[in-house]
């Protein structure tokens, strides 16, 4: 398909798009336009309706009301097939690739062409990637690729299928700062070739560096569209949150206490026998927040679960003060009198019972404490009311199943319960994932308060800017190994980025 840069039609124009899920209006009368040869950033807090809106463009949902115009014509997108036909392609947060096939095979899979695999496909893909200056080896297997390379394959797949309108859903969430720059170069090239690009993000610095215009969503409504050149991060935040906000996190300075958690030479294996954590050693002290950074899937989840007694330990030791808790079940750890609070990544699948109400979830770890065969719902209800009040949980009442709460409120319920247990160690995995800015700051404040009380906090994070401000020290994980522990005050984002990838190249060399 030839691309006409002088085309005056909008690549995409949305007018009055509405979409409800039950009583929740995910999208309420949204207008949005994007031209060919333009990058539009779609900015908004989690739950503001960005992904819902884009899923309607890619045919996954169907709008309840409003009109969609593609290249000047009104269309109805009923399925992903329709979207593909209209030249709309979306890169989702979770990649949809076949691990055991090469890049080229993944790209040509299900696309144009006949019944048989084309012999010249490697050459064809090589040429296509050179056109947009991608760096990609078409013959490499997807299973041997880094996250960034997989993302490149996803984008090329869309280009190969003739997409002119690209939607990227938080593409930088899984990338290191360096990889992000590379992606942005690719996007700028594609823009020059006349593609229309919509990038979903909630990172302001990225919006400023890549986009031409920004459309801001707030609570399902399109608040405003501004030219990037004429705005600044403070104005964008204000539009996004709905009121002015102070964007810095206070770092509480307090005396580092005794060593409370000592992890020594820890090695963990997954069910396939692959090492997910390799010979990891570190210390956590009272009154400090130790950040754990790393590309997603570097062993963070396994590390947390192993400390909490939920993941089998292959080798090594985990010492709480001087007690070895390696190989102990969560029950045994509690019975030792150790108060360790673990706020897992999978809140509804591990930290809470989704179909039970807030009261029942409050007594998840304490229901045994009362003697006899009955549970004590009175105390649990008191605690539930306290948590709802103190952390401003938005819920009809404490008897609402937690499944019906929004992500931020679910996290507050979980955090509230864990803090109420008066812990001496807190392990949190992606504590603010999916939370709006206000809720995130509530969580940061709560963690700082615990730190002041002398609690040791292990903070698994993904936003380096936040970690630099909140944490005392940051440990970087790369492929299950510790590539460095640095003082947060003395380091930079770029240096952390280097640590995150340092052994990626090492690992690849090993394989070859």
């Amino acid at each position, binding site marked *: 398909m030839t691309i006409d840069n002088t085309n005056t039609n909008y690549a995409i124009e949305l007018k009055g798009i509405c979409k*409800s*899920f*039950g*009583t929740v209006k995910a999208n309420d009368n949204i207008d949005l336009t994007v031209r060919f040869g333009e990058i539009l950033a779609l900015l908004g807090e989690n739950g503001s309706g960005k992904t819902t809106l884009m899923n309607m463009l890619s045919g996954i949902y*169907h709008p*309840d*009301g409003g*009109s969609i115009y*593609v290249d000047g*014509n*009104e*269309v*109805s997108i*009923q399925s992903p097939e*329709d979207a593909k*036909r209209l030249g709309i392609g979306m890169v989702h947060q979770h990649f949809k690739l076949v691990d055991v096939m090469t890049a080229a095979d993944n790209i040509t899979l299900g696309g144009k062409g006949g019944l048989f695999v084309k012999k010249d496909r490697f050459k064809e893909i090589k040429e296509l990637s050179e056109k947009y200056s991608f760096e990609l080896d078409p013959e490499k297997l997807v299973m041997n690729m880094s996250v960034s390379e997989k993302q490149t394959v996803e984008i090329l797949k869309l280009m190969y299928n003739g997409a002119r309108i690209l939607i990227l859903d938080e593409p930088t969430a899984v990338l290191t700062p360096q990889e992000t720059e590379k992606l942005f170069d690719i996007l700028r090239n594609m823009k020059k070739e006349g593609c229309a690009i919509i990038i979903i993000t909630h990172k302001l610095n990225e919006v400023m560096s890549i986009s031409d215009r920004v459309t801001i969503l707030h609570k399902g409504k399109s608040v405003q569209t501004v030219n990037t050149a004429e705005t600044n991060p403070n104005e964008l935040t204000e539009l996004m949150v709905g009121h002015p906000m102070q964007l810095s996190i206070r770092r509480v300075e307090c005396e580092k206490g005794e060593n409370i958690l000592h992890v020594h030479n820890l090695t963990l294996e997954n069910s396939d026998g692959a090492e997910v954590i390799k010979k990891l050693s570190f210390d956590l002290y009272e009154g400090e927040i130790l950040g754990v950074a790393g590309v997603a899937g570097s062993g963070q989840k396994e590390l947390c679960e192993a400390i*909490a007694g*939920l993941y089998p330990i292959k080798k090594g030791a985990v010492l709480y003060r001087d007690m070895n808790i390696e190989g102990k*079940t*969560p*029950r045994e*750890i*509690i019975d030792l009198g150790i108060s360790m609070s*673990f706020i*897992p990544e*999978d809140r*509804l*699948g*591990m*930290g*809470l*019972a*989704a*179909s*039970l109400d807030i009261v*029942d979830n409050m*007594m*998840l*770890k304490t*229901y*045994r404490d009362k003697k006899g*065969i*009955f*549970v004590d719902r009175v105390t649990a209800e008191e605690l539930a009311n306290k948590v709802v009040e103190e952390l401003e949980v938005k819920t009809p009442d404490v008897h609402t199943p937690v499944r019906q709460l929004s992500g931020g409120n679910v996290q507050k319920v979980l955090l509230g319960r864990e803090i109420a247990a008066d812990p001496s160690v807190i392990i949190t995995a992606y504590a603010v994932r999916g939370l709006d800015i206000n809720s995130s700051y509530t969580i940061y404040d709560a963690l700082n308060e615990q730190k002041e009380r002398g609690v040791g906090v292990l903070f698994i994070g993904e936003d380096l800017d936040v970690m630099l401000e909140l944490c005392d020290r940051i440990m970087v994980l790369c492929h299950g190994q510790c590539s460095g522990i640095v003082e947060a005050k003395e380091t930079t984002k770029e240096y952390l980025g280097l640590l995150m990838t340092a052994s990626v190249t090492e690992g690849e060399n090993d394989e070859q």
Partner: protein
Amino acid sequence: MNNKNKKISIHIAKRPPLPAKTVTLLYIFAIFLALCFGGIFILCLGVNPFKFFAKVFTGSLQSKLARVALMRIIMPLFITSIGVSVAFKMKFWNTGAEGQFIMGAVFACWAAFTFENLPQPIMLLLMAVSAIIGGGLFGMVTAFFKCKFGTNETLLTLMFNYIALYIVQLLRDGIWRDPAAGGFPKIAQLPENAWVYQLGGIDMTWVICIILYIIANIYFSKTKQGYEISVVGDSQNTARYAGMDVNKIVMRTMFISSAICALAGMFQVAGDGTSHTLTTGIASGIGFTAITVAWLGKLNPTGIMAVSVLFGILEKGCGVAKSTFNLSPAVADILQGIILFVILGFDFVITYKIVFDKKNANAEEKKGENA
């Protein structure tokens, strides 16, 4: 792409939760609607549906004899359904209630035949205890395999039904064969001291039903074990996180579930309904009907009670009506099927709504492209 045909597109959307009162009314309406559909079916058979349904109700409720027969259908069904629901609450799909029911009866008979001279109260107690322990362990084996080797409990419990059934056959043709039956393969009637007491013109299984109803309500909503069942049923990871011993809870719960089913079997064989004799037809599908009852009753003791009564009336009443109007015995099954379908259909209506929207669609054009 300028083709602007007015097209109606339909899609399904989840609706906000309805108030409990509306839901109840909808279910009552569903039963009414099911009777209408059933009525059309009856009409097709050339019978006046009003007369037919009138006969269903009078046939099952009018005379004392009919009411006793109705109770005999409801009682084992209710107990077994409660048993099934204990496992179902934990999302452990116990499809083996039929077999556990049979094994309960077998263990009860074993106690009665082995200690035949005990006084009646001790005998009944011993029978109940053997049914609970024997039947409970019989069901717990499947949970053990699930915990130890990750076997599929739905298939395993289903297969165990056949084991139970053939054990009865083996006993009938072997060691328990009644020598007084003149070569006819049957198991002897239980001695009279092993019969369930009479209370109010019927065996006192109904007292057990009421006690079980109260205990089940308390167990599910007030006890630690009931709480553990809910958490494990929601997410095993959450249960492990909370420090629960998931395997222990799964096995214990399955023991309780099958023990209750087995208790139903004990009362069936020691009650009046079966002339106090163990046969291969002792369970006659109760264990499978119980699965449906537990689901339709939303795993809630009160709901299960209501559905058991409804199913009982349908079965007993249809039995009377079909002989009055000279219809096939399959009519009752078909009517039950219709009711099931309509109620499950209403489940869909309660959870989802269908949205019609008129839009300028390019559907016409798409057809052209696909051709």
